[in-house]
């Protein structure tokens, strides 16, 4: 379980996170929703210790992040984290060199799934394919938790469908996933839990099936209530 406890974060005088708390379970897909600039990406960076927080605590399976944690949790930002001049194959070698959790078999499988070519140079890939390689590099790690920042934004519809298919496959099964989006439509039926954010605070945290069952509301209905009510 990933626990975010009362996290605050300031950029200069501007408070971007004002006491954010929520949890994300292993085996579940948790979706952070909010318009751009509400601190979704900052939360992910904070979980990965890629930006310091001012107060609060973040625990991964009960412990603070340390170097070994990066074999257990990974972050897929919305831009590729490999050198552009590398070929996909070189990126694989780099990952295998540094991560015990790198699963080459799965990487090859994903390569076929996404119909990518390992001799392609990253800088020469289309936007959609770059996003797929980025996703691949994260998903081919045998980690318990995967954080994805806007995996659907700015790419073509077919790539989106392919990426959405990943969520219903064994590639995600049993892992804990946190995904951010400002647009729930693509994945409404895929997520277990939704955390609604606005201006650095959590407005609501709920299980989607529960809300459908008990209140007969879709995620959009809840959002409408919360943001406009």
């Amino acid at each position: 379980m990933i626990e975010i406890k009362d996290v605050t974060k300031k950029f200069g005088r501007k408070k971007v996170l004002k006491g954010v708390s929520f949890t994300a379970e292993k085996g579940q897909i948790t979706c952070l929703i909010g318009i751009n600039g509400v601190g979704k990406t900052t939360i992910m960076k904070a979980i990965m210790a890629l930006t310091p927080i001012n107060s609060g605590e973040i625990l991964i399976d009960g412990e603070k992040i340390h170097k070994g944690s990066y074999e257990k949790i990974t972050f897929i930002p919305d831009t590729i984290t490999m050198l552009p001049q590398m070929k996909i194959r070189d990126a694989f070698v780099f990952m295998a060199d540094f991560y015990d959790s790198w699963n080459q078999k799965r990487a090859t499988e994903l390569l076929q799934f996404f119909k990518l070519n390992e001799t392609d140079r990253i800088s020469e890939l289309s936007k959609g394919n770059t996003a797929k390689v980025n996703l691949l590099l994260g998903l081919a790690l045998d980690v318990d938790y995967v954080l994805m920042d806007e995996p659907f934004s700015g790419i073509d519809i077919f790539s989106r469908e392919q990426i959405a298919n990943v969520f219903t496959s064994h590639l995600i099964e049993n892992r804990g996933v946190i995904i951010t989006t400002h647009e729930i439509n693509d994945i409404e039926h895929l997520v277990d839990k939704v955390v609604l954010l606005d201006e650095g605070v959590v407005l609501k945290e709920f299980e989607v099936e529960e809300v459908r069952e008990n209140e007969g509301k879709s995620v959009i209905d809840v959002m409408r209530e919360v943001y406009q009510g």
Partner: protein
Amino acid sequence: MSVKFNNRDPVYVQVIRHFKEQIARGTFEPGQEIPSRRELANQLKINPNTAQRAYKEMEEQGLIFTEGNLPSRITKDEQTLKMVREELILEAVDTFVQSVRSINVPVQEALHLVKDTYERENN
């Protein structure tokens, strides 16, 4: 297999309904093997946890059964299969009756129209 889900009903309920329809229609035969929960999630593009929940509910309702480590199958119990069919028919009738009632159509007229339309479509 592709299903259009709505966003307001629990997805697992919609999955169960989808199964019931297939059973009533005969697409799923008694004792037929059904996809694993992962395959189902993949086919329907839903969360594997939801597929799991749907199977659990169906198992409890006796719609499907699992023997040991074998894949789950559609029930062979005649009684249950009959009930599924009746349930769906009654549900449809309920919906129909509600809508015709809301515009004050007498039952004779409604039945007549139903018969006509049904026969025309069969031809």
